[in-house]
């Protein structure tokens, strides 16, 4: 009966407004959150386009262009640098030969380098080597395959090759160091779009350097760094000052990435702002609902109804509206997901239904948090209204 009584003062249009503002705020928040989850893989390490913001630097060509330990330490201490890895090269002469069945063989001088695994955009369990290993895995730049397929092969009358075939080509590496010569069997494990050199596992390079040329000091020829924003003027200044060279093309994609992240952050910020505004509107709405019933609430309280009983009527209203709003917001999220999907495909992200699970969890958390907040607010308002000495009745003398 108390619920009926309090509902008499509440208009449907007011509840509709309540639900609309609440849906709008929650909808925007959840849609932006969903977009955020979906685009995360863009910035993750596995994405070549906008992932891992790395820069490779080298010193100007000269007599001694190796990096010293102190220089590496200085790099590590810069606040725009997240991680630093160094390229080391083999201190021996490398000759690689390939013999294709029935097509004769090819032999060439080459070089080997290694870098920390965390900078390599290839994840493969075979990317390891120990002295007992039968073959050495090698990663080559994807450019090399393209050069062969579209440049060399047609002219030389050789067949084009693909990723699968390439790993089956047996390679013989002949390494001639200052004190020893050794032969290894190798194969191409994968190609890299990011690192422009011929890579072997670090363990292999360390081992062979030690065994073949124990007297030659290993030098760091180039440095690879993971940075927050490669277009950062501080970073470019730093390079300039120290005479370090870097690849311009890398900075271009990093600018795009930085711009995209900025846009997303702005969208998220606006989403949060609108949500905050909508929560304020909802709170104002609750206040209005309570204020409209001020007299009824006071009288109920003075008759012996507890604040809890009175507040629970309003709690039920706000839970119901919050529930409906969350459902509307979730429907919006699903609709937006379908609308965004083609665009996200263009950006090479895997748009899976998985992000919806996150959105659902966030929706439940939001429901609980907002329900608690509204409950607390309603209780406070009703306590204020029914506080001693503030009643409508104390005006009677």
């Amino acid at each position, binding site marked *: *009966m*108390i619920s009926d*009584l309090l509902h*008499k003062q509440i208009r449907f249009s007011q509840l509709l407004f309540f639900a609309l503002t609440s849906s709008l705020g929650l909808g925007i928040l959840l849609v932006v959150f969903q977009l955020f989850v979906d685009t995360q893989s863009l910035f993750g390490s596995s994405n070549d386009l906008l992932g891992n913001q790395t820069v490779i630097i080298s010193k100007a060509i000269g007599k001694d262009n190796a990096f010293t330990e102190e220089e590496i330490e200085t790099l590590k201490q810069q606040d725009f640098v997240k991680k630093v890895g160094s390229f080391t090269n083999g201190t021996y002469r490398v000759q690689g030969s390939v013999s294709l069945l029935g097509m004769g063989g090819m032999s060439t001088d080459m070089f080997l380098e290694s870098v920390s695994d965390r900078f390599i955009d290839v994840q493969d369990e075979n990317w390891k080597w120990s002295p007992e290993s039968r073959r050495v895995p090698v990663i080559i730049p994807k450019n090399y395959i393209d050069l062969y397929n579209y440049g060399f092969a047609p002219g030389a009358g050789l067949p084009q090759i693909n990723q699968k075939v390439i790993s089956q080509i047996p390679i013989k590496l002949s390494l001639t160091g200052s004190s020893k010569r050794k032969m290894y069997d190798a194969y191409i494990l994968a190609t890299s779009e990011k690192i422009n050199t011929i890579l072997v596992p670090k363990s292999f390079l360390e081992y062979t350097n030690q065994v073949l040329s124990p007297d030659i000091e290993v030098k760091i020829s180039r440095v690879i760094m993971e940075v927050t924003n490669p277009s950062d003027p501080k970073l470019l200044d730093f390079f300039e000052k120290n005479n370090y060279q870097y690849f311009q093309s890398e900075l271009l994609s990093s600018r795009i990435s930085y711009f995209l992240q900025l846009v997303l952050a702005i969208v998220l910020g606006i989403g949060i702002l609108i949500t905050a505004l909508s929560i304020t509107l909802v709170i104002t709405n609750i206040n209005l609902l309570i204020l409209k019933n001020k007299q*009824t609430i006071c*009288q*109920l*309280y*003075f*008759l*012996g*109804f*507890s*604040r809890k009983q009175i507040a629970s009527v309003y709690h039920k209203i706000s839970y119901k509206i919050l529930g409906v709003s969350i459902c509307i917001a979730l429907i919006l999220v699903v609709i937006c997901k379908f609308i965004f999907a083609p665009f996200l495909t263009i950006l090479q992200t895997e748009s899976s239904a998985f992000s919806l699970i996150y959105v659902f969890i966030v929706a439940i958390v939001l429901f609980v948090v907002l329900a608690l907040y509204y409950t607390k607010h309603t209780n406070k308002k009703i*306590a204020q209204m029914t506080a*001693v*000495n503030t*009643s409508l*009745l*104390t005006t*009677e*003398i």
Partner: protein
Amino acid sequence: MTIQIQTIIPTYFTPASSEGWSKVFSLKSGQKYLVKAASGSGKSSFFNFLYGLNNKFTGAIQFDGKDILSYTEPEWTQLRRKKISIVFQGLRLFPELTALENIQLKNQLTAHKTEAEILAYMKRLDVDQLAHKQAETLSYGQQQRVAIVRALCQPFELLLLDEPFSHIDDVQIANATSLILEEVSQRNATLVIASLGNSYNIDYTKTLLL
């Protein structure tokens, strides 16, 4: 329940010296008191102090030795459900509810009376035929009678009636007082009636002139 009143004075106006303000006295179970005064002397304030709506007074009021300022909000709620009943001067019925709904709203808190009992009470005060009419359509005198029945539909040890018969004719006043006195004596409750002058033919233990 014994109510100890110890030199209370409202802080928001200065009442004239009287038998109520600034005095020490007590209101005892089973006794009937008339608070008589002209308009504006603080009768409703006195009732509001006793009902816990207003605590702007100096001095102390104790229920069975406990200072009423120490009661918490849930304790007041329990007191208003089970120990103190009131008919406000302004009645405070819900205009959008029917007469019977107004009474049931109070009654459902303790389920003190059955609907038949309520209707019987309404009949005694000649408002039973108005049971299903909205309160706002009733005359003030009819509303007063509904409010009296509402006040009786709960357990109480103290019954506060603030000018309850101001718009009721003498025949109905007689009906109402007999019903009230029956209820009060059945429960051995304390009765406090505020009036501008009329004593309604009740045999009071004491009359307090405010």
